[in-house]
């Protein structure tokens, strides 16, 4: 599903965010991406979405070589991904329901089917009663749930979640992780970055740890911290 071949990313400002990253994530896997602040986790997700492009190496997602993807194909490629952004990135002047529906509408699905599906996604994250509110009227955690609803609404084969529980209380965080797990069990590949050791240590999924832009650990049933 996700192949990084010796990927390096040096931002124009000179910051080297990733160095020689080699990754192979198979379809259907559930992977935690961990590492200290600034270690390059979000950069990995941005590269997968082709928001940023690597300065070294090659990235192949689901058979698509991102380096060869023509710009006109990028939107279609992105629709195959469901992404929870670290900073949510909700449209500020559309309601919660419209935000979730938007991810469906861009795909050109039957307009009549859009709202029921958006409601379903909001129900899954428990935000359906706030469907008519603007994002600014939600608490941080509520916005995070809406961002998750948008990510899963079109049932993408690959879900990327960047710190999806950073603004949630432990109980809500646990439910969101259960939700991602169940999406994974239905066949989707899931890649989650997190700073929450408890969740990682309970779920015991594959853990890839970054440190200063390098993969320092990749364990099939790992813990948040390296077992000493």
């Amino acid at each position, binding site marked *: 599903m996700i192949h990084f071949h010796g990927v390096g990313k040096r931002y124009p400002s000179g910051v080297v965010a990733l160095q020689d990253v080699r990754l192979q994530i198979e379809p259907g896997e559930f992977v935690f991406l961990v590492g200290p602040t600034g270690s390059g986790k979000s950069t990995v997700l941005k590269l997968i979405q082709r928001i940023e492009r690597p300065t070294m190496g090659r990235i192949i997602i689901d058979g698509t070589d991102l380096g060869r993807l023509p710009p006109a194909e990028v939107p279609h490629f992105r629709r195959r991904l469901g992404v929870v952004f670290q900073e949510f990135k909700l449209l500020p002047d559309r309601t919660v329901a419209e935000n979730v529906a938007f991810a469906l509408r861009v795909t050109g699905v039957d307009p009549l089917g859009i709202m029921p599906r958006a409601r379903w996604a909001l129900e*899954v994250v428990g935000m359906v009663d706030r469907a008519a509110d603007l994002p600014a009227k939600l608490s941080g955690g509520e916005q995070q749930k809406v961002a998750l609803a948008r990510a899963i609404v079109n049932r993408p084969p690959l879900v990327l979640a960047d710190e999806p529980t950073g603004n949630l209380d432990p109980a809500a965080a646990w439910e969101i992780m259960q939700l991602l797990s169940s999406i994974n069990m239905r066949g989707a590949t899931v890649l989650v970055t997190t700073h929450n050791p408890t969740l990682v240590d309970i779920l015991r999924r594959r853990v890839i740890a970054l440190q200063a832009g390098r993969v320092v650990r990749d364990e099939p049933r790992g813990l948040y911290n390296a077992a000493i």
Partner: protein
Amino acid sequence: MSLEASTTPPSDGVVGQARGRVGARARRGSRASASIEILRDAAAGLRRNALMALAATSTIVVALAVAGGGMLVSANLVHLASMLEGQVEIVAFLRDGLSPTQRQQVLASISASPGVRSAVIVDRGLALRRLQRSLGTPSSMSDLLPSNPLPDSVEVRVTDAGRIRDAAAGIQKIAGVEEVIFGTPVVDRLVALTRAVRLAGGVIAALLAAAALLIIVNTIRLTVSARRQEIEIMTLVGATPGFIRGPFMLEGAFQGASAALVTSIVLGIGYAGLAGRVAASLPFLPLLPPEAILPAALGVVWILGIAVGIGGSAIGLRRYLRA
């Protein structure tokens, strides 16, 4: 809050569980409902950004009004110029003692002469009365003139004031014409003036239209740039540039059209009122009648407004839609 516990997702047969390459498939979908969606989106966009849309639209109204007003002024200048030119004339004095038949023959020859638009005979009695009137009719003067010293003449209007010399030379050759006069310096001035007026009219209209264009494009660019965050998020969730552009361009078109509507009302009422007042108080100043000029001017206003509304949105979006 898990997938299992909740309702199953509604299936719409388009986006199923097992998904292959989405690219090709996504570009299908119902065209008709898609355009309804775009319309709804555009309307919603305008509602959400009501204050910004208002500022932009009123700016466009002003720009269009200035351009449209300029066009009206320019058209009237050109009209005035041709009226003035139409008054340029050649006077052909006829030989004394021509019989009425001969005079008619001379008139026919003159009318057929190249460059002549119209010709009328002015007999010497009428010529004298006119002269007296133009001198201010000092009653004493008719007493002073023992007899009418003026000859019969033919007054000739030409088709092209700039080529009056050729026309006069042609008339001069006709038998029965004693002498041909045309106020050379006056005609030259008039020709130069009307040429300048025509040029100025064109330049004014073009400059003001260009100004309106620039202002409208810039205004729409500013409103688009205020919504760059929205555009960025749209691209991130997989909206194609075309999908993003659609509602924005429709909003632009709608703003342009509403601005054109307001401008049409203002200019239409304003010009009709002005033309009416001028006709009443300055009857000698020949303003174009509203029905002759408004359709064209307002047509340009509408085209400018809508085209620039769409084009401005497209230009404003370009920066944010680069892959």
